[in-house]
């Protein structure tokens, strides 16, 4: 299997989809990132990136049920595919592996 490389923003989106689980849709991600990381995102960037991840087969999307609060529009929910989960896992492993190779920083950190 080819290795999938992700940009920083794509990685963030992928992680957020994982974090939010059943509640992962565009605006929820924007709010969550705002709350957790104090970083303000543009909705269009979020959407576009999610579609791209979908093209890469890392997430899949489906339409939710009708809602009351947003003009009756349905939400497009995203969830991780198994490929998406394995990419997240391998990213984590790579990160840890590299992290261990940074002894000075570790010392300084302690």
């Amino acid at each position, binding site marked *: 299997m080819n290795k999938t490389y992700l940009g920083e923003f794509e990685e963030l989106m992928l992680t957020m989809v994982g974090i939010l689980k059943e509640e992962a849709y*565009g605006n929820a991600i924007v709010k969550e990132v705002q709350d957790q990381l104090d970083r303000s995102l*543009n*909705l269009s960037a979020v959407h576009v990136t999610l579609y791209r991840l979908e093209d890469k087969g890392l997430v899949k999307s489906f339409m939710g049920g009708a809602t009351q*609060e947003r003009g009756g529009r349905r939400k497009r929910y995203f969830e991780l595919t198994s490929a998406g989960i394995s990419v997240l896992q391998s990213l984590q492993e790579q990160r840890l592996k590299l992290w261990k190779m940074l002894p000075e920083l570790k010392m300084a950190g302690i």
Partner: protein
Amino acid sequence: MKDVRPPQRITRFLENICPEYLFEGIIGDLEEQFYDDLETLGEKKAKRRYWWNTLRFVRPEILLRNNSNFSIINTIMISNYIKTAGRNMAKRKMFSFINAFGLSIGIAFCILIFLYIKDEKSFDKFHANSHKIYRVEEKAYDFWDPEPDKPYNYSAYIQTGLGPVLKEEVPQVQFATRFNGGGNAIVANGEKVFTEQLAYIDPDFFKMFSFETLAGNVDQFLSEKYQVVLTPKIAEKYFDSQDVLGKTLKIDIQGENEFAVVGIITSPPANSSLQFDMLVSQTVRPYYDKNVESWQNFNTPTFIQLVDNADVVAVNESLAKIVDKYMGDVLARNVKEYSIPEGIKPFEYQLTGFQDIHLDTQITWTKSSDPKYAMILGGIAFLILLIACINYISLSLTASAARQTEVGVRKSVGAQRGQLINQFAFESVILAFLSMVIGIILMFIFLPAFNEFTNKELSFDAITIMQVFGIGIGLAVVVGLISGFYPAFYLSAAKPSQVLKGGFTTKMKAGFTKPLVVLQFALSAFLIISSVIMYQQMEYVTTKDLGYDQEQVVVVPTQMGWNEESNKAVERMRTRLAQESFVSGVAGTSLSFNQGYSRYGYEIDNEYRSAYVFAVDPQYIEVLDIEMAEGRNFLTDGVNDSTDIIVNEALVADMGWENPLEEHLNWREDSASLGSKIVGVVKDYHFLSLERTIEPMFLSMDKEQVGYLQQMLIKIKPGELPNAVDKLQAVWNELSPDKPFDYTFMDEDIARQYASYERWMSIMGLATLFAILISCLGLFGLAGINAINRTKEMGIRKVFGAEVMNIFVLLNRQYIWLAMIAFVIASPLSWYAMNMWLEDFEYGIEISWPIFAISMGLGLLIALVTVSYHAVKSAYLSPAETLKYE
């Protein structure tokens, strides 16, 4: 607060550009954000943010997801299409050639027609002021002979005095110039003596028209009487240089005068309605002083330039006042005398925009032309292009069998129908582009001939070349798409399962191509019949017995002016040439054939009549071999004959005379005498062109009342013609060394009357030739495919004992049928069209069945020869060859 809704306009905008399947999720999120913002930031800010956030969705990642609408042509396959197209053309070289060549000719023709129409439209547009310039014209009620359907006469020739009056009395007229072109005069500089055409104008001419001044002070041009402005060509002719300011030319306009050359001006371009070589002042025109006073002589074309934003209605009112002021009395008298019905204006001036005079059909002018000619030419070009397109369609269809397999394979590996349609359309556009290149080359080859046919000087500048290429490319795309359209749909419809199974017979489907061939042949047949009729008519016109003998006659103007000297010059020439053995006779006349005519109107017994009049001498009837019906010729020494006349039979009939020789014709309305005595009657002869009937005419020797002998008609003895002109020139130089020797041949003068018809016949002939050529190419291709399709059938037939002749007939029969059907369709159409054309001639041929039979025979023969190649080839093919692979 709950009632506030997000701005709908931007929502709709997003809906338009966003792929449908994404839209709901996106707009839902946006609205959710909006309602959140509404609570925290307030309405105004929330709306602004909504706008902005929505707008941020306009980005390629979203737009390009509309992929179904975007990449129309599958770019990946294009290189493959080109390759396939190339291979196909190479594989079927002959058909590709037939297709490309046919289209090329069509395109070449279309571009030529475009150039023609462009040239027609460009007439007189190059003057900076041309939109402000008008030609003044008369619209006069025909007192003498009002025809019920068109009782008015229109003419560009108006009174000489009107030009100055207009400039003086009509405030909106800024400039006015008169323009009498084509006045012959003898011009001399030392030894160089030639007859030139002068144009008599006013100084305003130079302010109105944008002919470039090359030398001299334009403000002073023609400010004095004896000045002349030349074109460079004339300056070179007389002075061998263009540095001619201050030099003089001797010009003989009713007496010789020295004219100072004051300027040089560019020659008018071919698309100018005003043509001239030398410009002189109106004031030196013959009888100018007399003409300028008279409001009864109409002989001067006049142009005016109005001030900016002039009110044309007001100008017309002023013109009406001028009519009242200068012509009111005469007109009132005429209205009474001829009892003109109430409510008819006997005389009016009207204005025609200068740019419109070239295509004006009401009043003819030098070089003016009828827009219908451009339409006919355009129609012919369209027909030829149509025939070429039909070729393409029918050949593509008939050759489609071979490509069915390709389509099958393409489809089974996943090509969609749309892609296949694209492919075939693409192929035909490529072919059309090839044709365009050949077509433009052909156009350059045809151009000189085309110029000659149409009497034009079409040429190229950068813009025209760009336009030509633009049109070429446009035609190529349109023709490629149109003619590729049907084959593309037809071919792409093949079902792979059927095609690839192998059960598919490779026989052509003639069902659809047959009507195309019939249509194509009908178009060609139409052109063939029309050409044959035109040819016969021209043959008839040029060989018809005109009632006199126009062969071997040289026409030489006396160059002596309108006076007694001219008659003496004829007499001198006759005496001198009597010693020469190559001349059989010399006659004099006021006007030779195709030089114009004089026509007098007169009132006899309260009836208005008119007759054409020619001044002649007693030798006239002899030299031209005109037959006398009754009476005698003029007497050679007949002094008394000056008041006698010889009339033609048409005049006798018009007057209703029983014994014309006992009658008098009081054509001068002389109350003191009976009028001219009739001494002879000539049989009717065509003194005008065959476009007209023979009308009443008489010959006279009355110098004062009818005219002087301005033209010598010199009859050359048979066999002496080759050197006759040189010998005549020698004699001329002996008799009048200071005058130029001009000559024409009478038979050529007469033929020139029909020059425009002759030209049209040439164009029709050329078009017919091309149409036949293209149709034959198409037919040839079709017959070839048919022969190949039926090779095995023919083989089997031969095995069973069919003769070569049987097979020949079998293969050709259907084409003969098609050609005959085509002729049946084309005959009535061409009969109708040609009848309209023949209406121009008073003496036309009858369109009768032999013409159609001849044309049909011709067409059938051509068709037969075309298809026979294949028929003969397959008829002689040995069955062993054709059947051995079965």
